[in-house]
Every structure is written in structure tokens, then in C-alpha cells.
């Protein structure tokens, strides 16, 4: 716990030392929301069938899509980011010389991006409620938390697999590219999966983010009970059960190979 707090303290101290970047990040939340708010204005009055399961309005649909997909992408990117940043900054060697194991370093260092991401999600949702007239009626918070935690662990596992790749090959990670591109296109971040052709809808079912966003929208926008979320919970649990041990195994192998090749701190 002390180590987690030490990483957190380090990251907060660093973030606050870059004052302009910190302010800019806050503004970065408002501009995309404004864009989609005006897009949703275009659609006002028109009845879009594919949005019916989510309450019928485009703006709440896309608000949840952007807020949570950006958070889940943090799970995907933070581990590779931590390793490659420490390699290029030159701090990795010093970290590895301490009495803390690399997996602990990785998990502790990832906490700050996750907290920052969670704050961003809350800011997105708060901005939606306060400035864009979005209403969340009877949201199922317990269901939302279950889906979110499963998704974060599942995505973090993919992130660790990606970090293993970076550890050995340094750049050009296909895992990350495949997941982020496919997730953005197919998993229903900006538009419902139902509007895509049948074969693409089937492909989308293989992407964890599709199930995550479906479950999150159901619980947040429609207040769906846990029983109605069971499909998403089962899929995400299964993926997590497979991916988490696989990612930890691959990571330990990648560290050993990098130590053997003498490339642990190279980039």
C-alpha cells in the first residue's frame, strides 16, 4: 500500500508541476462534448430505432460511449505507456534496481492513470448533466460497478499482454493496434452496433468493449437490473478468467527474455 501511495504521490507532484498541461486537459473534455451535442441537435425530433434500447436520444448514448471508452482505453494503454515512458525517460533501470518487483511497479504506477481516467468520466457525466441537459433516471450503480470492474481487469490484461510485447520488441505492438482500432470501429462507441451489417455485428461480439458499453448503457441509461446484465457479465467474466493469467504468464516470460537479451532498459 505504501508503494502504491508513493507512486500516486510522485505522479500528482509531476502533474502539478506542469500547470498549463493540467488546465488544458480539463478543457479537452468540454470540446468533444460540444461537438457531439451539436451533432445530436441535428437528430432532434427524428426517431432512430437503433437508439430505442438506450432511451432514444443520441447525446446520452454518445456521452456514455466517449466517457467509458476513454476510461477503458486507459486500461489498455497505461501499462505499455508506463514501460515505454520509463525506458525513454531513463528511470526504468533505477526502478528495477530497487527492492520492488516489476509487476508491483507496473500495477502501482498504473493507479494514477486509472484515477485520472475515473475523474475524467465523472467530469464527462457531470458536464452532460449540468450543461447539456442529460438525465440518468434510476441508474443501476451496482450493475455499473460490476461491469466496470470486470471490464477494467479484462482490458488491463490485454494491456499487460501489450506491455509484454513492448518489453521484447520495443515498438509496433499489434495487440494494441488491433484492439484499439477494432474497438473504436465496431464496439458501438459513437453509434449503436445494430446499425452495422450483420457480419460486422457478429464480429463486434468478439470485442470486449462491445459488451462493456452495452452493459454500462443498460445500467446507467435504462437502470437495468443485474439479471438483465447477466449476458454481459458472463462474457466479461469468461474473458477475464482467460486473459488475466495468460497476461501475467506472458509478462514474466517477456521480462526474462529481455533480461537474457540485455534489452530490458533499451527502447
Amino acid at each position, binding site marked *: 500500500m505504501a508503494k502504491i501511495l508513493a507512486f500516486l504521490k510522485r505522479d500528482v507532484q509531476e502533474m502539478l508541476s506542469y500547470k498549463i498541461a493540467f488546465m488544458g486537459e480539463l478543457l479537452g473534455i468540454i470540446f468533444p462534448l460540444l461537438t457531439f451535442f451539436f451533432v445530436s441537435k441535428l437528430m432532434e425530433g427524428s426517431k432512430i430505432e437503433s437508439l430505442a434500447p438506450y432511451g432514444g436520444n443520441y447525446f446520452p448514448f454518445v456521452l456514455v460511449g466517449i466517457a467509458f471508452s476513454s476510461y477503458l482505453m486507459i486500461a489498455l494503454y497505461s501499462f505499455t505507456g508506463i514501460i515505454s515512458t520509463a525506458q525513454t525517460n531513463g528511470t526504468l533501470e533505477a526502478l528495477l534496481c530497487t*527492492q520492488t518487483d516489476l509487476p508491483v511497479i507496473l500495477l502501482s504506477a498504473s493507479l494514477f492513470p486509472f484515477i485520472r481516467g475515473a475523474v475524467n468520466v465523472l467530469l464527462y457525466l457531470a458536464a452532460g448533466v449540468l450543461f447539456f441537459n442529460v438525465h440518468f433516471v434510476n441508474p443501476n450503480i451496482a450493475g455499473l460497478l460490476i461491469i466496470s470492474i470486470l471490464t477494467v481487469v479484462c482490458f488491463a490484461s490485454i494491456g499487460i499482454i501489450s506491455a509484454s510485447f513492448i518489453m521484447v520488441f520495443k515498438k509496433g505492438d499489434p495487440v494494441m493496434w488491433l484492439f484499439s482500432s477494432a474497438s473504436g470501429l465496431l464496439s458501438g462507441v459513437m453509434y449503436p452496433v445494430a446499425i452495422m451489417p450483420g457480419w460486422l455485428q457478429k464480429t463486434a461480439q468478439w470485442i470486449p468493449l462491445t459488451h462493456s458499453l452495452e452493459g454500462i448503457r443498460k445500467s446507467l441509461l435504462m437502470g437495468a437490473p443485474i439479471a438483465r446484465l447477466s449476458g454481459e457479465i458472463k462474457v466479461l467474466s469468461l474473458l477475464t478468467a482467460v486473459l488475466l493469467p495468460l497476461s501475467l504468464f506472458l509478462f514474466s516470460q517477456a521480462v526474462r527474455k529481455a533480461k537474457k537479451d540485455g534489452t530490458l532498459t533499451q527502447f
Partner: protein
Amino acid sequence: MEYAVEIENLSKKYPLVKRYRDIILHPLTQEKMAALVDISFSIYRGELFGLLGPNGAGKTTLLKILATLILPDAGRVRVNGFDVEKKPGHIKRSMGFVVNEERSFYWRLTGLQNLEFFACLNNINRYLIPERVDKVLALVGLKQEKNRMFKDYSAGMKQRLAIARSLLAEPDILIMDEPTRSLDPAAARSLRDFVRKELVEKRGKTVCMSTHNLHEAEDLCDRVAILHKGRLLACRSPRDIKSLLPATRVLEIRIMKEGLCSGDSVMEMFRRKGYNPAGLVEEGQKIKLSIEKYDISAGISGIVTELADMGFTVTACLPRETTLEEAFDKLVEE
């Protein structure tokens, strides 16, 4: 336990990056380059040990193996009695690696904040961290500068903070990779004094440092290992290494040249007499040069007479002891 570090038949090869053609034509083969070949030596407790060698000799690879950052291919390496492959955690508890990379700190944090962070990662109890950090800052003379951002430190201060970091866990053994590399002569001298007097003599630490600077090694180290192309050429005290050139000395000669003869013609005259002249310096009529590989057992009266016969007025003729640099050059040359 007598030894702080024991290395037996250590070998390490690095895989070479494949060219695109080789990836296609020979996907399963991997060419390797030898970084260390069958190295064996030990470092005594409380010793200041130097690793010498030109670029690419394998010094950094060896230090990184000791620091458990690289795994050996063959052989056995023990630090404080622990095997580097089997007990890396135990080694990290008793050894501090002074990372010679100023980017290994967080530049936007102060010296104090950096040390507090690394102290926590070294399992120091959080209640003891302020006291321990204070102690190492005082030891390296940075207590007054602790609240300055790391980016504002001078090169010497950065190097001192790196040493302070390595001392946080109070290790018995310190590994340093070229600690004076980026320092000016005064800062380097101050750091050398600190390592010798404070760390080794006063606190009894074992220090293993790599360096390019042979004068530094000669002044500072109890023993040195000379590496060249991954092989161990010698492992002795600087004095013993210099004695590898037993009967030869360098003779420094100062003469007044007569008439209009040039420095080059003076050198040529020495060569014709069978000497190895070098390092010619001309200042008006004064000439200073060295005779290398001079057999001192023959005495100097013979050469003085010879020089007088050649028409020179000899103002000085001094035998000089072989330097570690000369012994190093000879070993590497052979």
C-alpha cells in the same frame, strides 16, 4: 564470508539485430556477439575494485549482471553470497547500483521528493524514511539543496544524489558505472575522495566501479580488472599490473639543441641509435622527449654520454615509473 562478489567462468552473448534479408532467409537462426568470455575473479569485502577497459570491453554488461538487470548465459555469479539468477531479491537488499544516468531521476521533483520515492520502493519503513533520507543527503553534502528541483542540480550534484539513492537501503556493496564520467576535474576529485575516504575507509563498504580513467583507477583502487573484448586480461593491484613491464621504464630527457637541427632530426638521431623516442616538445633551444621501453637496469650514464657525443647538452635525464596507462596499453596491445 571473505568475498563480496564471486564470478566464476561467466560468459554472456547478445543476440544481434537481424537485417530484413536475414529475417526472411534465415528466420530461425540468431547470430550472437560475445560480450563476456569465461570471466573469473572475486572482490574482497571492504575493497575498492576497479573495472577497466576500452569501450565495448564488457564493463557495463558485467556491472548490470551484478545488479541483476541482465542474466548471464553461463557461469556463476554471487553477490554477498547470493546467486544473481536465483536470489535477485536478496542481492538488491545488500547492494546499491549507482545508475550513471541523470535521466534516472524525476526532473520535475526535488532531490528530497526523488529520494523519498526511491526509499519507499526500497522497503524502508515510512516512519524511518525522513530520517534515512536526511542522513544520506547529509552524507553526500546535499542537505542544503534538497528542496531544489532535480533539473536545477549541477552534474556533480546529480551524481551525488545518485550515490545517495544507492545508499538508502544501507547496502554493504556499491556498484558504480563510470561515476566521474560527466564531472569536471574538481567535482571528480571531490567524488573520488568521498568514495575512498567516506564510503570505503570510514564505512567499510565494498565498491566496484568501472572507469575509463586510468589515472583515477591507479589513485583510487585497491585492485583492478582489465577487460578487453569481453576477456579478462588481468586482475591485480595497479602496482602489480604495472610490474608486468618489469625491466622497462620511460626515460624523460631534456636537452639543449645545438645549431639549427630540427626536432624531427633529433628524433631520427635517437632512432638510429636504437631508442624509441616519443612525446617531443620543443621550446626554443630546449627539447623535451621520452625514451620508451628503456632498460633501466643498464643505468643512465651510458645514454648521457651518448647524448653528449651527439653534441647535445643534457639538462635532465630522469627515469619515470611505468604508469597504469602504459601497462594497460601493453596488455591490450598483446
